[in-house]
């Protein structure tokens, strides 16, 4: 896909739309992205929005990159200054030679000589839509869509298709919006503004899709057989539950038309995980989705599920913490707290999707792992991955059949003649379970968070406790082998390895290209799950220095890697940065270079 033969500016540009939230600009921005996508050009959007419903500033950054870079761009040469409150500072961010489109009939005027600023007659153009006056504000955003289309060359046909996609084919709103787009496009084209930034149709997106991680994760859960979702609303995880609520009715009906799933909005996150634990215990594929504060509240139940060995899946779409923090900004700060979630000695299985495709894949496999390992499985996504639109190969149908783990039916019990819930005949630390409702007289057992022996009978005997914990330790070793292994890209001659996880993949990829261009080849490992395994140790051992790049304050993956391979602890360095924004390639490249 890399085609760097294009002249600079062609299919390599970025636009920021500064608007007021709640004004409907999201429709405009998504239409732009999808239209560019349909032109076959790699594109990505990142929405920077406030923890607020209406009236506060929001910035939507669109990055077009022939090479497929999707990290947050450092330089954004095109500004759509549609929020007078932030326009001055937005303008100040514009590099010299940049372009600024703004409402000429609004209160704000740009005051910079080194940029090209074009006032748009917004009200006049918006009137082209013929919508009722109270809707005018919404369609006003289409003015910048049309102007931008003219400026950089977005095909109007694709814009129409994108709007049709957005309005799910409803003709009227498509026409109304397109009328404004067309008017603005024509008006702008007539102004003769020269632009160094142009789009040119490519073929990079054949067969590709454009999707956000939360929708992909929800679809993964659906194809992974989720049958129960208990959840409590919280940004940025809400859209995952919303996607489940919207796709499940279409995709998951039984032969009699009844749903093969249930969704319960719980009264809080404690209850949400409690319900998932109850349902997982009873044999459903149960999940919950939340973000940091919810994870904190789930601590006690996470420990119970770990210790009583109940399968369930917990999505944590991370935002910035500690505490309520920045609810609408992205971070990778829950890694350590989730891995060790619970008092006493707990260590969880944590999946770390690095792309929307993996949100789907891990959405599926989380259930297999949870039921195979009889344990809660956490999936740590983040706001950037979860709520923004990303290009991806199509979601891939699960290759393997569902793994429902070791469950004994009444017939099997009859054959075995005995049931020892926590026996470990296979040495993998996993005993077979029975489900409630199993009619065999041997099947019943009382699950518990209290100390128990192999037969799950209450026990305070020191030997029983130790044996059980040792077995849980073996199970953790099994998990180490079963979870998705890291993706490793070894580079010829690289003495430096970069390690990352999750959504920062793209910033790292681009940073590695920058470093390579500077004569510093680097290898790369993307960690995809905890517990860490041998490949991670091996990767670290192969490099003189490994730099762990992550979007948090304290270098949490770096710490976990140090614990994992203490013999190499000293050569694990950290680039940890968290300020609410996704990492940029420049920041990563600069920080890595400075460390060396």
């Amino acid at each position, binding site marked *: 896909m890399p085609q760097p033969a294009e002249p600079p500016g062609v299919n390599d540009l970025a636009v920021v739309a500064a608007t007021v939230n709640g004004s409907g600009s999201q429709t405009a921005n998504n239409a732009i992205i999808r239209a560019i996508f349909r032109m076959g050009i790699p594109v990505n959007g990142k929405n920077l929005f406030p923890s607020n419903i209406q009236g506060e500033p929001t910035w939507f950054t669109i990055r077009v990159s022939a090479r497929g870079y999707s990290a947050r761009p450092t330089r954004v040469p095109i500004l759509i200054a549609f929020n007078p409150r932030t326009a001055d500072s937005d303008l100040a961010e514009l590099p010299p030679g940049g372009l600024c489109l703004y409402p000429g009939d609004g209160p704000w005027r740009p005051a910079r000589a080194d940029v090209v600023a074009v006032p748009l007659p917004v009200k006049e153009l918006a009137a082209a839509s013929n919508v009722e006056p109270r809707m005018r504000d919404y369609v006003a955003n289409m003015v910048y869509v049309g102007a931008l289309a003219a400026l950089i060359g977005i095909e109007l046909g694709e814009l129409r298709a994108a709007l049709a996609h957005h309005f799910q084919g409803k003709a009227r709103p498509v026409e109304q919006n397109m009328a404004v787009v067309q008017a603005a496009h024509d008006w702008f084209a007539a102004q003769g503004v020269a632009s160094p930034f142009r789009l040119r149709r490519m073929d990079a997106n054949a067969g590709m899709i454009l999707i956000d991680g939360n929708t992909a994760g929800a679809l993964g859960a659906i194809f992974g057989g989720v049958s129960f979702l208990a959840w409590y609303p919280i940004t940025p995880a809400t859209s995952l539950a919303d996607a489940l609520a919207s796709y499940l009715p279409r995709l998951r009906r039984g032969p009699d038309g009844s749903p093969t799933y249930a969704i319960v909005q719980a009264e809080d996150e404690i209850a949400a995980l409690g319900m998932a634990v109850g349902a997982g215990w009873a044999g459903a594929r149960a999940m919950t989705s939340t973000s940091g504060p919810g994870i904190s509240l789930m601590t006690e139940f996470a420990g119970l599920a770990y210790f009583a060995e109940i399968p369930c899946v917990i999505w944590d779409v991370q935002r910035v913490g500690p505490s309520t923090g920045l609810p609408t900004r992205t971070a990778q700060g829950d890694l350590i707290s989730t891995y060790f979630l619970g008092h006493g000695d707990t260590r969880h299985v944590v999946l770390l999707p690095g792309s929307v495709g993996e949100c789907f894949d891990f959405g599926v496999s989380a259930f297999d792992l949870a039921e195979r390992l009889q344990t809660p499985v956490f999936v740590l996504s983040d706001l950037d991955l979860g709520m923004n639109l990303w290009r991806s190969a199509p979601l891939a149908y699960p290759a393997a059949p569902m793994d429902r783990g070791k469950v004994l039916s009444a017939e099997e019990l009859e054959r075995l003649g005995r049931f020892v819930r926590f026996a470990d005949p296979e040495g993998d630390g996993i005993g077979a379970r029975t*489900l409630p409702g199993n009619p065999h007289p041997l099947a019943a057992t009382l699950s518990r968070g209290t100390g128990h022996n192999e037969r799950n009978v209450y026990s305070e005997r020191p030997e029983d406790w130790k044996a059980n914990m040792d077995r849980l330790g073996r199970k953790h070793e099994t998990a180490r082998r079963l979870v998705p292994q890291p993706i490793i890209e070894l580079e010829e001659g690289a003495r430096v390895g970069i390690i990352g996880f999750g959504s920062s993949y793209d910033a790292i990829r681009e940073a590695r290209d920058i470093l390579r261009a500077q004569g510093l080849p680097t290898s790369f490992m993307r960690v995809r799950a905890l517990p860490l395994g041998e490949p991670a140790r091996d990767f670290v051992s192969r490099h003189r220095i490994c730099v762990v790049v992550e979007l948090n304050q304290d270098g949490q993956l770096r710490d976990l890697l140090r614990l994992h391979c203490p013999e190499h602890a000293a050569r694990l360095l950290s680039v940890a940065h968290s300020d609410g924004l996704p990492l940029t390639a420049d920041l990563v490249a600069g920080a890595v270079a400075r460390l060396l």
Partner: protein
Amino acid sequence: MTTTRAPLNALGLSRADYKGAASTLCAGCGHDSVASQIVAAAFELALPPHRVIRMSGIGCSSKSAAYFLGRSHGFNSLHGRMPAVTTGAHVANPTLIPIAVSGDGDTGSIGLGGFKHLLRRNVPMVYIIENNGVYGLTKGQFSATADRGASLKYAGVNQLPPIDLCAEALIVGCGFVARSFAGDARQVRELIKAAFCFHGTAVIDVISPCVTFNNHDESTKSYSYGKAHEEPLHDLTFIPHYEELAVAIEPGEVRDVRLHDGPVIRLRKIGADYDPTDRMAALTLLERARAANEFVTGLLFVDEHRPTLAETLGLGATPLAELPAELLRPSPEALAAVNREFM
């Protein structure tokens, strides 16, 4: 499986088949009496043990889930969190019949929010609160149902008014609310039988004395107080529906409450007539009893019109937990169609 000559129920099971592990509670603990009435009720109703699930939180009361229905699955979960776990289990498999034991601390203190939301959702189950006005397992602190002015060895004097868990259940729309006394075995048993057949959450607040920490005569949660002050609203008999016609009644003396699958709760008048289908009457009764320091027991309220959670969710006949893989994973074509939407 069983070899005793004890009487067998309709399933061919003996009472012993409904027993659990030997109790480790204090000798005389009210919770043990309740447990034996659970055993009796399940035996008499001939409940299939594998369909019943016994659920609990943490406390002496919650421990007792181990001491009945040993052939039933169960979950001894977290302090105050049994409602959530039971809700999940019900949704996963509505054919299961949950019976839960909880404590006044478990339900009235840490678990109060979860209790109310469970009732709001109407998860069909028997919810027994073994109410002793005290935290037994942690050795004698006041719970939220402790009498105002009560005193305990370490905890001193309780200055706060008690929470009435029956009133709490009523106000949030619970359709089966009863109060009973562990010393009144028959009433407890009949109520449990009725509760098992109720179509929704059935709450029974059983005053269940803690003989170790709160059984002094002044405590309204003691045996002596209960024995001296219990005022049953009615004499209550649960009648599985097929026997219904066999029971001759004198008119005016009884009220029959018919449950939706046929069984009948027969309330024989003791003092004043009491209509257990009037929610405000139940609240008024509790308020009056509170003001007059009366200990009223019986079926306070019954109303079966609300749908259960599984019904609200429109679940099909096959429990979610038993769906085959084919129904859990849509087809490759379905995924292809979804993918197309994102192109």
